[in-house]
């Protein structure tokens, strides 16, 4: 088998990022449901946004939209996700 191109490596890593993000987000979702813990909800959605949603947005927009729009869209998803994670940190304070 020929050595993979960097594009193939990038695609493989993107899929891996997608899957790992999904697993972590699902664990957080279970934690939210079982323990009625709102911080976990925001943490899960935030992690899902920076991994899964960002990867999907990149893939879909690179096919459907103008190339220059791909980066802003996926970065928006990532920034929004980080905001949600920060909110989860704020919510998790004990007082």
């Amino acid at each position: 088998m020929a050595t993979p191109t960097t594009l193939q490596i990038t695609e493989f890593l993107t899929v891996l990022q997608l899957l790992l993000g999904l697993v972590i987000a699902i664990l957080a979702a279970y934690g939210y449901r079982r323990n009625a813990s709102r911080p976990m909800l925001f943490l899960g959605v935030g992690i899902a946004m920076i991994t899964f949603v960002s990867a999907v947005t990149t893939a879909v927009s690179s096919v459907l939209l103008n190339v220059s729009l791909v980066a802003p869209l996926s970065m928006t998803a990532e920034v929004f996700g980080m905001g949600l994670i920060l909110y989860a940190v704020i919510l998790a304070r004990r007082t």
Partner: protein
Amino acid sequence: MEDENVQLHTCARIHPTRATLDRQAIRWVSELSIRFIYSPSVTGAVAEDCPPDEVFALLDDEYARSLLSATSHEPMTAPELSTQCEMSKSTVYRRLNKLEACGLVRAVHVPDPDGNHRKRYEAQLDELVVRLNDGDFELNLQTTTRTQEFADAFTDLWEGL
């Protein structure tokens, strides 16, 4: 009199200290690897060997109940349980043996940071369903699945921040 009962029922620490959280994190990671490698040996006893009478008697016993609630937050060794729940060690061991036989509690061998292998007891009971079918009592013990345990540990980790 009432104070005694309250003390026994709430012998689980609700807000863990910082040191406890660090230990919990280390334990969680080591248990993750242990479970993935040794998963067959870490499954607990099934409640089939245990007649319903014994399970009801255990749930009726306030010592067994306080042990269950204490071990539901984090796995604990028997000496820790006896100091925290203020029960004699023999009482703790007797109850733990009965609880383990009925599958309500599971013993996990987790290496301490100091290197000793201690047996830590962990409540396996998530939900107990009692069904009356044609005059026979059927008990269905639902243990938390591994995914649910990870989710709970994740929540503890995050909420401890």
